[in-house]
């Protein structure tokens, strides 16, 4: 600058000097040549000589000049830096609060940015770590991360962080007086004024005891395991929030932001606070925005499964209910049937260890419950029976038992009423005899009437007897020789005797057949008696030759004692004969 001025002086001297020089011709020439420019040059020199004007001129181009130079190199910055530092130092020495308050609003965001960068780095390394861990949980979270387009670590953090802000205090730093306070709904608090006082007293205590620097203030208080108090400092007041659970670090940033904005808008009131808290009522909505809470978000994501599971459960329950009801009613019906069944008395029934158990008394003749249970749709293997045998005294059981014991042939019908067993129809002699013996020992039978049962054997026996007893074998006169031509008759007799004997054995009755010899009335009685005997013996001999056993046959001669009562000659022949008689040695 000084240099410029010198040159100017020199220049003007030159001009004035020229005017007084002897070489006037040159001066005139110069005037002629440079006439119009001379005026301009004078104007320029005036501008340079006037500092005000010069400053104004420089200011017009200063910004442009700096810009141009800055683009070229950093000489300007280097030139100014020392002065700037000096200025800042002086300013801080004079009044630190001014600078602090000035940069306070930018400080917060700057720090926040630095921290979030740091957290980002941490998250990335966390991501890497978690990428290597593998579990069902992490799979689910990974899926969620893909779905929500968040980083996996963020999702993990989200799941681990649950918290609720219960109270927010805004406390005047200098007096420790509470400026504003909000509570999460439903919560109860001790007098917030006292809490505020104590909080600031504790801060003072901590600061006095441990901290030297102004920034060394309490920022976290732990209460037991579940609660924390976060303190966020501002120049004039601080925010204290009571939090249940673990809040995320971003919440710290929210608090910082809140303190900053409150300070930006209310600094004056806070600085001049004299106990009147009314102006701070308007902070309540701001503080309420700090009453944050976070719940596990997964519950929402899981909701599809959450209602699916009960649905399946309910359907399953309904199905089970129906099946159970059906099974119960089957069982109920079966039991009813079983209870009403005769010959069965149930003493105990129920479900035990997966199967049905029935205990009671059962007549051996009662219907098999297994077939019953099949009819009611209950698989017979699902029921276990514990029967104690007994005899039922009901009529049909006595009858059934009797029929069971007597085994009557189909031609016999047996009935039972009032202790009396009756029978009718036809049966063999032997069956009737046995039945009469057995029937007496069957319980419940006090009387028997088998009168109406016809003994078929006896009938047949009597027929055979009648036939035999009507037979006559003829002899020659005064001889024990048979009249010829009786072969058919004797064959007949032979068959009848065999049948009678057979039947008698079957009926277990001893049968005796008598051959009775006869004579006519000619000759002496003694002679005739002997002859009649010989005739019977002769017939027996004759029959024995035809393989008839003589056992059970009695030979008898009665002479002329029972003649036919006619004198007719024809009857003489009848009297020369042998007749038969069947004797049974048993009362039939």
């Amino acid at each position, binding site marked *: 600058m000084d240099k410029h001025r010198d040159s100017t002086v020199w220049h003007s001297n030159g001009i004035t000097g020229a005017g007084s020089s002897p070489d006037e011709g040159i001066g005139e020439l110069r005037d002629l040549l440079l006439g119009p420019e001379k005026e301009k040059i004078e104007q320029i020199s005036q501008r340079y000589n006037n500092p005000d004007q010069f400053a104004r001129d420089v200011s017009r181009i200063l910004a442009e000049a700096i810009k141009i130079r800055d683009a070229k190199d950093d000489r300007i910055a280097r030139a100014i830096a020392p002065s700037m530092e000096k200025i800042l130092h002086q300013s801080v020495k004079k009044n630190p609060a001014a600078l602090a308050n000035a940069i306070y609003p930018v400080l917060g965001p700057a720090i926040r940015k630095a921290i979030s960068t740091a957290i980002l780095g941490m998250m990335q390394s966390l991501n890497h770590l978690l990428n290597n861990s593998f579990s069902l949980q992490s799979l689910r979270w990974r899926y969620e991360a893909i779905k929500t387009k968040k980083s996996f670590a963020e999702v993990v953090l989200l799941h681990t962080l649950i918290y609720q802000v219960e109270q927010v205090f805004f406390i005047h730093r200098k*007096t420790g007086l509470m400026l504003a306070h909000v509570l999460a709904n439903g919560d109860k608090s001790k007098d917030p004024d006292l809490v505020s006082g104590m909080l600031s007293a504790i801060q003072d205590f901590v600061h006095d005891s441990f901290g030297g620097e102004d920034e060394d203030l309490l920022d976290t208080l732990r209460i037991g395991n579940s609660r924390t108090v976060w303190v966020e400092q501002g120049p004039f007041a601080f925010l204290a929030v009571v939090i249940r659970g673990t809040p995320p670090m971003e919440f710290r940033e929210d608090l910082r932001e809140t303190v900053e904005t409150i300070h930006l808008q209310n600094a004056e009131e806070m600085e001049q606070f004299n106990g009147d808290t009314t102006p701070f009522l308007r902070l309540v909505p701001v503080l309420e925005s700090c009453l944050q809470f976070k719940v596990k978000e997964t519950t929402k994501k899981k909701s599809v499964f959450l209602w699916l599971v009960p649905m399946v459960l309910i359907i399953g329950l309904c199905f089970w209910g129906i099946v159970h009801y059906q099974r119960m009613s089957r069982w109920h019906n079966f039991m009813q049937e079983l209870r009403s069944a005769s010959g069965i008395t149930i003493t105990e029934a129920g479900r035990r260890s997966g199967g049905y158990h029935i205990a009671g008394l059962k007549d051996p003749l009662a219907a098999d419950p297994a077939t019953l249970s099949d009819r009611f749709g209950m698989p017979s293997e699902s029921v276990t029976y514990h029967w104690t045998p007994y005899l039922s005294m009901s009529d049909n059981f006595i009858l059934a038992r009797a029929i069971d014991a007597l085994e009557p042939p189909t031609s016999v019908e047996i009935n039972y009423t009032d202790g009396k067993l009756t029978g009718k129809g036809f049966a063999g002699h032997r069956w009737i005899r046995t039945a009469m013996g057995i029937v007496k020992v069957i319980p419940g039978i006090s009387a028997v009437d088998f009168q109406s049962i016809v003994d078929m054997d006896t009938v047949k026996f009597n027929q055979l007897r009648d036939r035999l007893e009507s037979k006559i074998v003829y002899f020659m006169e005064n001889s024990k020789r048979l009249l010829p031509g009786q072969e058919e008759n004797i064959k007949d007799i032979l068959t009848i005797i065999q049948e009678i004997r057979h039947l008698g054995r079957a009926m277990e009755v001893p049968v005796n057949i008598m051959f009775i010899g006869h004579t006519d009335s000619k000759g002496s009685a003694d002679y005739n008696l002997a002859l009649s005997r010989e005739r019977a013996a002769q017939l027996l001999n004759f029959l024995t030759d035809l393989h008839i056993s003589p056992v059970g046959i009695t030979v008898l001669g009665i002479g002329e004692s029972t003649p036919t009562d006619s004198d007719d000659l024809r009857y003489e022949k009848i009297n020369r004969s042998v007749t038969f008689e069947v004797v049974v040695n048993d009362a039939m």
Partner: protein
Amino acid sequence: MIKKKICMLGAFAVGKTSLVQRYVNSIFSDRYQTTVGVKIDKKTICIGTRKLDLILWDLNGEDEFQEVRVSYLRGASGCLYVIDGTRTATVTTVLKLEKRVIENLGNIPSVFALNKIDLSDQGEIDTQLIAQLEDNRGEFVRTSAKTGQGVETVFQRLVQQIMAEH
């Protein structure tokens, strides 16, 4: 709503806690439990139609082991200096504290309480010293936390001064 911070100052066992308890909860106990650090209580009073919250900082007594923290005094609107009428030494302590308050906070509203007046037969303090204090300090009230005598008055006087400044 107006809130004012008031500090209770004095030597140990002069009855600072007892005066606060009498004033706030209307109770008195013979048991002595020394205050460590500070205990804060609140009393809401009405002045005309306005409500006033007194936030009472009951500080620990000043003795050779425990000094009253200056930081606790910060922002106080008034001080209540308590003297134990049975112990002369408590006067010296109070004056020392008064000096510290004025150094840090300037001339803020203050009242003196000559406590345990119910034990006046054991009164140890020289009557001349008391008279001198009464003359020099505008507000000087005889109190007993035990009987309740002067307790309302001493706080009322302090509030009046504070509100005059407000």
